[in-house]
């Protein structure tokens, strides 16, 4: 298990990085945390002829916020994001999702943007970004392009970045605080494994306790992370009683199109989608009502 040969480039600015990508096109891969890419290279499932290491670009590890948006730079590590007070307070769902990615030792090196760009349909962060209506900021020689999460994830390990584009940042709208709760729940074979299924949910209640806004996205149930929009519509304006949540879970499960693998068949993933949608909604609602003491 040794990588094929490649040329190594370590640009010192975003401009230089996009120049290199423009020169080498699809033969080049961006190397950030390397927790997925290097693994694929070691097994020669990925054989880029050029590796553009962006770890030496200054200021790309930023985690900040302005005007209601949280910004996460291309080499901000998952562990940093998980622990950043700013992320925990303004997009708690994202921090919760980060805390469930792999093991601490992996999260210390693995980047948030890298995980999103890798577009593993089972991974936590793409689903969380989708539930949060996040965006990916892409840079190329042509300039900057902002891609909605829903347009970013195309298929398994496939995103909508052009070969000359470099994902420099995530933008995540700050989650409302008032009567709002969120939850990321997942089931994996072992602690730290990619989930067989995960559900990320944000629920805002109105003053009467009915659902004012619900956003639900799942991982592990299809070619890409799935946004459960029909379920969101179903919940709108309704009081989140057990029966409604069960109905929501049913509707979500029916919308999935899972791919089976050695860890879980398609049918089991659909079953988990039902269970986890319900559980994530229950937790999110409890948190919105401030009933959840862990929140």
């Amino acid at each position, binding site marked *: *298990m*040794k*990588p*094929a*040969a*490649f*040329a*190594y480039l*370590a640009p010192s600015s975003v401009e230089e990085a996009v120049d290199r990508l423009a020169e080498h096109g699809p033969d080049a891969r961006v*190397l950030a945390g*390397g*927790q997925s890419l*290097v*693994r694929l*290279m*070691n*097994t020669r499932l990925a054989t880029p002829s050029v*590796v553009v*290491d962006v*770890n030496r670009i200054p200021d790309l590890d930023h985690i900040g916020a302005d005007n209601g948006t949280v910004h996460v730079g291309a080499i901000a590590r998952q562990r940093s994001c998980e622990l950043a007070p700013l992320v925990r307070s303004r997009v708690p769902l994202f921090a919760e999702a980060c805390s469930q990615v*792999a*093991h*601490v*030792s*992996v999260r*210390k*090196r693995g980047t948030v943007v890298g995980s999103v760009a890798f577009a593993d349909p089972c991974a936590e962060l793409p689903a969380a970004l989708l539930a949060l209506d996040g965006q990916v900021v892409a840079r190329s020689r042509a300039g900057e392009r902002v891609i909605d999460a829903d347009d970013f994830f195309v298929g398994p390990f496939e995103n909508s970045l052009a070969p000359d584009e470099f994902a420099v940042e995530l933008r995540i709208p700050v989650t409302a605080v008032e009567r709002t709760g969120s939850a990321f729940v997942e089931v994996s074979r072992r*602690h*730290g494994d990619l989930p067989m299924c995960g559900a990320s949910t944000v629920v805002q209640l109105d003053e009467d306790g009915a659902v004012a806004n619900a956003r639900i996205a799942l991982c592990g149930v299809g070619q890409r992370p799935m946004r459960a929009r029909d379920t969101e519509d179903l919940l709108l304006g309704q009081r989140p009683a057990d029966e409604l949540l069960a109905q929501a879970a049913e509707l979500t499960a029916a919308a999935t199109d899972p791919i089976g693998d050695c860890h879980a068949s398609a049918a089991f993933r659909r079953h988990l989608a039902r269970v986890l949608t319900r559980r994530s909604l229950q937790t999110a609602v409890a948190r919105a009502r401030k009933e959840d003491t862990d929140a």
Partner: protein
Amino acid sequence: MPDKIRISLTVNGVGHDVLVEPRMLLVDFLRDELQLTGTHAGCEQGVCGACTVLLDGETTRSCLLFAAQLDGSSVRTVESLARPDGSLHPIQRAFTENHGLQCGFCTPGMLMAACELLEHTPLPEPEDVKDALSGNLCRCTGYQNIVRSVCAAGRVLATAENGSHPASETAETTGASA
């Protein structure tokens, strides 16, 4: 074959100024180029943690990093722990006193991960150890004695830092002394 990359790095306090092939993994660089074979490769895809080293003080899997990336970095491996006079590092001592190893293959990775944990969490609870070391697989011990070893090492190091002599008794098992 693409051009080699010149890097300057420090490994266990020793400076190296070398040319490396871009694809040379850090684990192979340490083992094959520097003959520091204490760092082991178990899976070469970042799952088992056997190759864990400290990169600028943080644990990292040396199978998922290219040596070419390390210009200006500082790496610590298991070879840095014991002294040349044969005295073991307190963490190593805790591992032997608590029988925290059997075949020893995963042990260097466990030790380096423990080093980092104890740096930030001097007196860890078993749950802290599990969170910090869960990315390191051991097939022999069932982990219980590894967790005990790390907790015990924390107590010894904390005592030492308070100025008194490191306690020699770190064994937790009843009757663990002969």
